[in-house]
């Protein structure tokens, strides 16, 4: 579904992405893992067209995403730090996004809005929200339009255990519907029961892209965090 070919991006002297090529297919749940500053968010933002790669290209369903925008109809994005117009209320932000993005014959998916209890907070202004509530709004927006691809950047950071359980269940449910899910996270233990594939980035370079079973077999570790740790030790 999403194919990145030789994507490179420099910020000044820093090579955020260095010749990265990955292929992501339908029905997969892919974890993007790597140390801080390894280019995970840059890769995600390149897929969304928020960052324009210096070289290389990315295709979505076979179409180059450069100068295209309609492909984003199929993507739900949850940013690492959700930034919203400060003096709008939660309700206004949700209504605005529905107004801008609404398509015919696509039902909006309000599961998360209901599960997070955002209805009681609709009149709260964005600037008064705590980090966790903001994350809840971001998550609800990502799932709202029933997209076939979900891009989640540190989805559980800042969420309380209850909320992050709700979110995880929602991710699993969407994965079962055959959607492609891309997740970055530092809390590897959380990813265990979610992911099917691992992409490991370091210093902007792709170190490996393997399925979870392959990784477990090669390292002899059952848990994801152990497996990744043993990979990191060997390098």
């Amino acid at each position, binding site marked *: 579904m999403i194919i990145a070919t030789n994507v490179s991006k420099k910020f000044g002297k820093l090579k955020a992405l260095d010749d990265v090529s990955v292929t992501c297919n339908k029905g997969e749940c892919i974890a993007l893992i790597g140390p801080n500053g390894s280019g995970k968010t840059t890769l995600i933002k390149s897929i969304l067209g928020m*960052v324009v790669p210096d070289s290389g290209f990315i295709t979505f369903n076979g179409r180059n995403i450069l100068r295209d*925008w309609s*492909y*984003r109809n199929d993507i739900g994005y949850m*940013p690492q730090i959700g*930034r919203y*117009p400060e003096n709008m209320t939660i309700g206004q932000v949700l209504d605005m*996004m529905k107004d*801008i993005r609404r398509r015919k014959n696509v039902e909006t998916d309000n599961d998360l809005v209901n599960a997070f209890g955002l209805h009681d907070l609709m009149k709260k202004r964005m600037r008064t929200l705590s980090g966790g509530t903001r994350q809840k709004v971001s998550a609800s927006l990502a799932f709202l339009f029933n997209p076939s691809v979900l891009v989640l950047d540190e989805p559980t950071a800042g969420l309380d255990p209850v909320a992050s359980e709700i979110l995880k269940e929602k991710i699993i449910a969407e994965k079962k519907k055959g959607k492609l899910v891309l997740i970055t996270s530092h809390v590897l233990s959380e990813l265990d029961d979610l992911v099917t594939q691992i992409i490991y980035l370091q210093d902007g370079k792709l170190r490996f892209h393997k399925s979870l079973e392959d990784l477990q077999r090669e390292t002899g570790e059952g848990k994801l965090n152990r497996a990744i740790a043993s990979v990191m030790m060997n390098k």
Partner: protein
Amino acid sequence: MKKIIKYVIVDILRNRIILAYTIFLLVLSLSIFNLEDSPEKGLLSLLNIILIIVPLVSIVFSTIYVYNSSEFIELLVSQPLKRSTIWLSLFAGLAFSMAIAFFIGAGIPILLYTTGNTGLMMLVIGLILSVIFVSIAVLASVTTRDKAKGIGKAILLWLYFSILFDGLVLFILFQFADYPIEKAMIGISALNPIDLGRILILLEMEVSALLGYTGAIFKDFFGTTSGFLLAFAAMLAWALLPLWISVRKFNAKDL
């Protein structure tokens, strides 16, 4: 695109600054027309104030507004929207609000108190200048990541167009006083939309005789239909060119 413009305008109108600007212009123009004994004199006084205030408020407000909507822009960029649509909607919302503020604040008093072409010309020039400086502001803010730097740039640009440029022109005039540069001055005046606006209004006022020989040359050029159209084309270019460059920059910007 219409939907985004709607959200931008609603957001700007909720901002009290634009309301204060409208009331300020309204009070200013009403008091000038009531103080001066003839509307022509009133227009002349209003001219100088408008040529300073309108560009200043347009450029500074727009620059700050663009920086303050960085969250809004970021939110929209990850949605299925064309980047140029987002940017042009932001511009359209700003330009429309500034133009409406000028029209209510200065345009309506001008239409009420004066008759004839001079007032109309001033109204049109004021509206175009509002749009031009919004366009320059969006260019200034897209090329600078830092907010403080961007606002500083906007203020410097305003300073350049309303004060420094005239100083430069005077300097050139004195340095080349021995050469026949009157014709070249027409070309140079096209480099500054504020000067262009001032010349167009002054020529309507029939006070261009006071400008001496250069004034006569100006009258000769801008007084004809083709010269007049050329001047308007130059002002239009001042509105569209910075906007066009800013769209191209925004399309390639990393967010």
